[in-house]
């Protein structure tokens, strides 16, 4: 019987590993569709950034109370993994609380620490559910933000519910276990009392031993299977930020936020036009698209940003365009980019790893001209993002495509362009009058 359980456990673990592996491959392959951009410079600065922003969650503490609550879940996630390691080993080896004899007196201390974490996670998840569904924090409402309708809204609640259920199984398993320990049941050797599950003991004390063993085993299985299922689910969910926040902050933009990336392909043409350089005698290599129409025109970092986005909406809540009722939402830009990436990923999986043109693109099918044109490039979204995502960088690349490839500009922008070309100023003034302000008569 024990061996059967061990085999089943191994199968479950292998299945989770397989599905997660497949997803990692797809995510990696779709990120690598993006343009090259060197983000390997200044490694020390990058490490410091990752430590501060991802490990230390510096930007989350912008709002101290929310920052603290998020930190409880984050620390819980990181540390409870040590207990999960014991559970996995128990499952594989057919042992029960493998670490208890090794750690001796430290073991109950450790379990109590994990229980404290688990209880903290549970409480914060309940508070977060309340904020989403009862007190209705504005930036999290699908009724106000169209990008949250459907899966994203369900996704957010699923994550919180799953974590509550997992923590409940963990605590109730410990409670049943400690009742069994106090009855001296074989296999359940005494390891001391537990802090939080102690409160659940009264529920189990009236149960007979067989029922208790059954519940303990059931909770153990549901907890670990739940964790494995959740780990697979995470790769489809906004919750992926728990892993990608780290590389994403490491590869942060380290330049001034106001700086737009140069386009060297344009520089060469401009120099030829101004007679500063001679055109190359051989036919020029095929020029890539100007700006970005679809995900493969964006950089790999833009694409990693999209997979890292947690849809918290801090960007959108500070966006001047969104605040005044315009169609633009920086969060939607990131979610659209990810949705398109997932679509391309499915396409590639179905076609043996090759993308077969589906006639769709990020610009047009997901993001509209109206959204792009509402952006004031104020960098509020970039400033707000707790993990240094830049929706602005995507917006500006799509604008370049819009203008340079499709010549699609509002009439007043075309007028501004022609003023610039003819008068070297965005308004229609004669360049000869540029210095008139200094005339002594004022």
């Amino acid at each position, binding site marked *: 019987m024990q061996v059967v359980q061990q085999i089943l456990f191994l199968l479950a673990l292998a299945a989770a590993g397989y599905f997660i592996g497949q997803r990692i491959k797809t995510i990696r392959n779709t990120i690598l569709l993006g343009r090259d951009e060197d983000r390997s410079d200044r490694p020390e600065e990058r490490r410091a950034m990752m430590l501060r922003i991802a490990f230390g969650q510096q930007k989350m503490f912008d709002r101290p109370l929310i920052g603290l609550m998020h930190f409880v879940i984050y620390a819980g996630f990181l540390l409870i993994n040590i207990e999960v390691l014991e559970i996995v080993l128990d499952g594989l080896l057919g042992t029960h609380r493998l670490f208890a004899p090794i750690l001796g007196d430290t073991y109950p201390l450790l379990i109590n620490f994990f229980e404290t974490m688990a209880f903290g996670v549970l409480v914060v998840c309940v508070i977060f559910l309340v904020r989403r569904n009862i007190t209705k924090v504005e930036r999290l409402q699908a009724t106000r933000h169209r990008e949250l309708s459907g899966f994203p809204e369900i996704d957010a609640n699923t994550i919180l519910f799953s974590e509550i259920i997992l923590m409940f199984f963990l605590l109730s398993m410990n409670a049943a276990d400690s009742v069994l320990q106090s009855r001296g049941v074989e296999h359940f050797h005494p390891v001391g009392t537990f802090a939080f599950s102690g409160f659940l003991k009264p529920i189990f004390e009236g149960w007979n031993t067989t029922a208790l063993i059954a519940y303990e085993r059931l909770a153990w299985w549901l907890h670990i299977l739940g964790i494995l299922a959740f780990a697979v689910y995470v790769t489809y969910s906004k919750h992926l930020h728990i892993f990608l926040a780290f590389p994403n902050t490491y590869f942060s933009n380290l330049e*001034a936020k106001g700086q737009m990336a140069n386009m060297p392909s344009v520089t060469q043409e401009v120099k030829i036009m101004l007679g500063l350089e001679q055109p190359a005698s051989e036919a020029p290599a095929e020029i890539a698209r100007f700006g970005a129409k679809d995900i493969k025109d964006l950089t790999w970092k833009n694409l990693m940003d999209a997979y890292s986005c947690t849809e918290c909406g801090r960007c959108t809540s500070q966006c001047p365009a969104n605040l005044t009722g315009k169609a633009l939402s920086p969060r939607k830009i990131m979610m659209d980019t990810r949705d398109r990436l997932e679509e391309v990923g499915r396409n590639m999986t179905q076609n043996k790893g090759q993308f077969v043109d589906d006639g769709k693109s990020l610009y047009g099918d997901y993001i509209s001209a109206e959204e792009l044109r509402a952006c004031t490039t*104020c*960098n509020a979204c970039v400033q707000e993002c707790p993990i240094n995502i830049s929706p602005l960088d995507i917006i500006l690349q799509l604008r370049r495509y819009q203008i*340079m490839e499709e010549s699609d500009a509002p009439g*007043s922008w075309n007028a501004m362009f022609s003023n*610039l070309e003819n008068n070297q100023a965005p308004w229609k003034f004669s360049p000869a009058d540029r210095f008139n*302000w200094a005339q002594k008569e004022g």
Partner: protein
Amino acid sequence: MSQALEFKVPTMADMAMQGETPEILFWVGCAGSFDDRYKKVTIAFAKILHRVGIKFAVLGTEESCTGDPARRAGNEFLFQMQATMNIQVLDGYGIKKIVTACPHCFNTLKNEYPALGGNYEVLHHSEYLQQLINDGKVKMAEGGSFKGKKITYHDSCYLGRANEVYEAPRAVLEALDAELVEMKRCRTKGLCCGAGGAQMFKEPEKGNKDINVERIEDALETGAQTIAVACPFCMVMMSDGVKNKEKEDSVKVYDLAELIDASM
């Protein structure tokens, strides 16, 4: 606030002819050259420089748009044409240090010209004014006209978030001995005036409110009768906001340079 100039503003061409080099190039920008309201800021800043004896020059008719609005709109060709031509002029005169009163020019010259071969030390006029004040070169007159008055400062996105210049403009205002009151959204949380990203040159997209109206409400809430700005586009948007609220008689919008010029 400003009066007419009582001195001749030197151009780089004049200086080069006399074999001289200025300490700084004052980059005036298009708004500073053509916009009637912002010309007053240009004059105020030139007067400050003249009064404290800074050897400066302007490009005059040789200056042209940095290309910022073209680049933000998506027209990279036009931006690079402008930038390349400007870099030729600047390098032709051997310019090393530039001061400008426009955060958009500041950002472009400072952060974006290097990739095209133009490397200069670039300062926004708020940073330069702060230096002049710290060095004791700019001194406020006793009982300056803004002493004890409430002033609120509107952060320009291209100065603040884009380049993390938050304190210099505030330090300049503090030199006025005024009571600096902050809006609820300030510094990193400052709300855009609505004109950046080439929005200045188009109608806003469909929405339920104009951004500058949203912002002017923040400013009026402080009770300040003077709104200080440090950007020509913010100047237009905030002034329009004041008009929209029909407060133009009681609330005034000034650039930092104008406030300093009037208090020296």
